[in-house]
């Protein structure tokens, strides 16, 4: 079984549209959305939910006011300023549990924390796993790990040979969690200075973790010079650029219709098909 993870340093480069299009082209696969903060892939797949599951985050701490004698030790020990006037500010709490262990009155207790949900779905293309992290919840990395685990289990159960994963933006914890053990990271980049700047950080990251990486330039004709720069930059670090996709309002039109861009009448269809063939070569499938 192989896994492709589609990432981009910067958001909005067309990652999800490309992932959905690959979902149309690939056969015998499972789809997985690891952008648990702001999942979007489901908007293009029209999924029907088969199972809905709770994701329990790290337990939260709560102060039992009937036991608390206001000694102030918890407040003094908290490095995150999360306890003020006998109340825990959950938005500041890192979950270190120092207050819980330290309270001399045992007035701090742990409460269960429903941090989000994950879904196993059917779509017209392939089985699909995605998740939604609650607002202001921590642990996105752990939920990403959960989603990937379910996608893998589903693929094993149904004899699928490929997992296509839509990754989160950035280079932080959820991205790191999305990359571990994947077979190919496809970085989608735009020829804008911001995107190029982010590309170098993403390539540092994939290199750091030793993940096989390839790059695809979306909207390349917005700025052909910058596209060249991307290609030179990639060449320097030995990362292949395996696709160029033209600028086309069809991306937006397809999103509004709720379908992958490859199902539109557009010049980019051929670009994406070429990209897919190159990815197959990279993966050896």
């Amino acid at each position: 079984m192989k896994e492709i993870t589609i990432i981009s340093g910067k958001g909005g480069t067309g990652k999800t549209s490309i992932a959905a299009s690959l979902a149309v082209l690939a056969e015998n696969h499972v789809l997985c959305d690891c952008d648990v903060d702001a999942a979007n892939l489901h908007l293009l797949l029209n999924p029907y939910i088969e199972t809905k599951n709770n994701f329990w985050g790290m337990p939260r701490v709560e102060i039992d006011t009937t036991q608390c004698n206001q000694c102030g030790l918890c407040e003094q020990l908290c490095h995150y300023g999360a306890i003020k006037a006998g109340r825990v500010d959950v938005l500041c709490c890192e979950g270190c549990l120092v207050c819980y262990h330290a309270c001399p009155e045992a007035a701090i207790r742990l409460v269960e924390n429903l941090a989000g949900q994950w879904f196993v779905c059917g779509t017209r293309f392939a089985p699909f796993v995605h998740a939604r992290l609650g607002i202001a919840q921590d642990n996105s990395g752990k939920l990403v790990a959960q989603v990937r685990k379910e996608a893998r289990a589903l693929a094993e159960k149904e004899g699928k040979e490929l997992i296509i994963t839509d990754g989160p933006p950035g280079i932080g914890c959820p991205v790191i969690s999305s990359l571990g053990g994947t077979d190919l990271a496809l970085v989608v980049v735009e020829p804008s200075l911001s995107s190029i700047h982010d590309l170098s950080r993403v390539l540092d990251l994939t290199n750091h973790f030793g993940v096989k990486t390839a790059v695809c330039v979306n909207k390349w004709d917005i700025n052909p010079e910058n596209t060249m720069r991307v290609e030179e930059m990639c060449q320097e670090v030995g990362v292949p650029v395996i696709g160029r996709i033209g600028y086309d309002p069809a991306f937006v039109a397809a999103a509004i219709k709720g379908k992958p861009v490859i199902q539109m009448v557009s010049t980019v269809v051929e670009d994406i098909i070429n990209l897919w063939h190159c990815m197959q070569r990279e993966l050896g499938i």
Partner: protein
Amino acid sequence: MKIAVSAAGPDAGAPAEERFGRCAYFILFDEQGNLLEVINNKGAASAEGAGIKTTQVLLRHNVDVVLTGRVGPKAMTALSNAGVAVYTGVSGTVAQTLDKYREGLLVPVTEPNARQHSGVKESGRVVK
């Protein structure tokens, strides 16, 4: 000598688990293959550092050898520093995995064989 096998279920007939840090159970055996104990891996619930927490669980139970699938670099650092021998290549059930180990068919590892889950450049600092 205590041998731990990473397992998806709480008995010797359960499938052996590929993952080390996030596996649900460890089944402990002695050299003769007698089942000693089933450990519920509390380390798996850790948001971060599950491999380290899991190693700590094994150390608490004085495990000498662990049979598993993928071990990340940090867990590997932890295990090797703690003197736990690691063998990979689990497949089938826990009992079958143990048999394979006793027949010498499992591969001992000194290098981590799973990509790390979180970032490091420096390896764990060892204080001796």
